């Protein structure tokens, strides 16, 4: 169900991890035993099958495997819905028979951008890695962006008219630069890994202007390319216990006291601050003469005081 929902959004990117790494969510390190490559093509085909069953038109740009191999495993119902653009057999158009697409992969992508067929469509790029190796990166990014946003050029885009672009990327072929750029362009990113023969997909979903959400889903793909979602692999006794991450408590090791004992708190509450407004003070202000002596100033002039009873300003000639 979760994977179905991912299909509803445009721009998905699936990339398999060739050496199974310790990509497990619980944080314990596990020695890697498996040597099976967690390949993503079967997941791609499973997603394509789902799209086709939903009635969407599916275009496939096949670059890495032949058409027969790609169509293998799909039944005829689905195969009839797939429109396959073959770039594997003759990528440089040497045979010039007219069967292959002229202009190479770039022209094929641009033709997909310009399609005018109404209705939702899914475009699967069999391998983005292949395209990255054959096309300049900026052109590819711009074309991908146009592909996934072509419906916004038209007037109103109802949700059914969305274009879903699925791309397969082999992570180990590229450096951190291309991976970072493509993941920033994509709306959903699925990283494949697994453990104990069970494949898992780490899905990162970036919504515009909102925090990205991620989850890990264990799954398996049946021979007819249906997707089966599962819970985790059967638990085994772990060789190492999980290292406990101590939570940082900022109130430890302080040089001052942050807490008050009960007695201290009572003393603090009963203390009257000098400028605190209390009823006594209010009374004192309102009725100054009641029971209190008014203040006087008593001044005893000293021998050294120079007191003059006259007005000192008389000397001035004003």
């Amino acid at each position: 169900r979760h994977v179905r929902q991912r299909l509803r959004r445009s721009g998905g990117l699936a990339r398999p991890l060739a050496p199974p790494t310790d990509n497990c969510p619980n944080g314990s390190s596990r020695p890697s035993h498996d040597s099976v490559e967690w390949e993503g093509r079967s997941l791609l085909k499973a997603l394509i099958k789902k799209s086709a069953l939903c009635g969407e038109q599916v275009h496939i740009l096949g670059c890495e495997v032949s058409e027969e191999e790609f169509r293998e495993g799909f039944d005829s119902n689905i195969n009839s819905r797939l429109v396959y653009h073959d770039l594997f057999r003759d990528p440089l158009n040497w045979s010039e028979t007219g069967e292959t697409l002229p202009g190479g992969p770039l022209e094929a992508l641009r033709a997909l951008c310009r399609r005018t067929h109404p209705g939702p469509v899914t475009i699967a790029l069999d391998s983005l890695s292949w395209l990255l190796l054959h096309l300049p990166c900026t052109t590819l990014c711009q074309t991908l962006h146009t592909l996934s946003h072509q419906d916004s050029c038209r007037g109103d885009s109802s949700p059914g008219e969305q274009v879903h672009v699925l791309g397969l990327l082999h992570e180990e072929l590229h450096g951190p630069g291309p991976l970072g750029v493509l993941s920033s362009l994509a709306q959903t990113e699925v990283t494949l890994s697994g453990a104990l023969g069970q494949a898992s997909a780490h899905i990162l979903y970036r919504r515009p202007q909102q925090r990205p959400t991620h989850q890990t889903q264990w799954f398996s793909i049946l021979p007819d390319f249906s997707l089966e979602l599962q819970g985790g692999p059967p638990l085994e006794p772990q060789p190492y216990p999980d290292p406990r991450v101590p939570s940082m408590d900022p109130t430890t090791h302080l040089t001052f006291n942050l807490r008050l004992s009960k007695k201290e708190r009572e003393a603090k509450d009963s203390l009257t601050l000098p400028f605190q407004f209390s009823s006594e003070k209010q009374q004192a202000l309102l009725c100054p003469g009641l029971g209190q002596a008014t203040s006087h100033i008593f001044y005893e002039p000293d021998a050294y005081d120079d007191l003059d009873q006259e007005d000192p300003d008389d000397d001035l000639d004003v």
Partner: protein
Amino acid sequence: MAAAATCGTGTRSTGSMVVSASRNSVTSFQRRGPRASGTDSGCSRLVSIAGTRPSVRNGQLLVSTGLPALDQLLGGGLAVGTVLLIEEDKYNIYSPLLFKYFLAEGIVTGHTLLVASAKEDPADILQELPAPLLDDNCKKECDEDIYNHKTESNIKMKIAWRYQLLPKMEARPVSSSRFGHYYDVSKRIPQELIEASKWHGFFLPEKISSTLNLEPCSLNHSYIKLLQFIQNIIYEEGFDGSNPQKKQKNILRIGIQNLGSPLWGDDICWTENCDSNHSLTKFLYMLRGLLRSSLSACIITVPTHLIQNKAIIARVTNLSDTVVGLESFIGSEKETNPFYKDYHGLIHIRQIPQLNNLIYDVSDVKDLAFKLKRKLFTIEISRT
């Protein structure tokens, strides 16, 4: 006796009055008063453009960035003729917000906008600007906030009794000020404000034809087109003083989104050593030249976390005037750190320009954190 002499009638007394009058005005210098026709630019000593104010330090003309907290950190605002560079956070959630605040401030103060993007249509960007908090709405919002705050805090404060009589100082946004407005992020700007404003959009996929043959050039084609576009707007609308303007002077606010990403045709995010290593730096240099000679201010967001070559990041920082970096906690270990649990990320003021000045107005506080509340983007000193 002197009074009796002046009371006399006849020409002789009139003559004496004239003589006395001329004796009073000893000097022939006369104070030039303000003329009735205020359109002469020569007599108005201060250029008073809406939405600007002179800096208190050096008199530099400043515009607001849309966030009064950020204005304060930058020393009063963004100087006219300079570039504000925002280093994007990893998932590009908060930097578009600062971008939109800048543009929204331009609409509210009546400045002309120029929005350039390779990813989104500028018209769509303008639709998503936050709504300004004006006088009547603002009081309602603030009372709501203050009420929520009061019910949360249960610490009683004992204050000196004389202060209880004074009216409480609240951080209520003063929306009647002409510099720096507050915005509500959860609402969209009203359509009539956008229609009343003047804006120009540059959407790269429309301007660049896809069948362009990629000849190697020292400067990226997209950047050349963008610079030409900006230059045309500045010249045609007279922001550089080229047309003797009869009308009121105005500021051009330029916003460029995601500069340096591959959608602009630049591959500095792709590899460390690429052919167009210098495109972005040259673009910034030329842009700054355009800005310095015109009444404009520019905000640029750059995905520096994707740029592979650290030297380019350093050059880009040096070529901009004000640089603010956003670091969000999503996905990093700081997300679970109890020190940072109240905030969504850190904001780093990496550079402030020294314009006609020997020192700059650097704030003392270096630990600044931001938080995106439902309606407001706040910047606070992180309490660590």
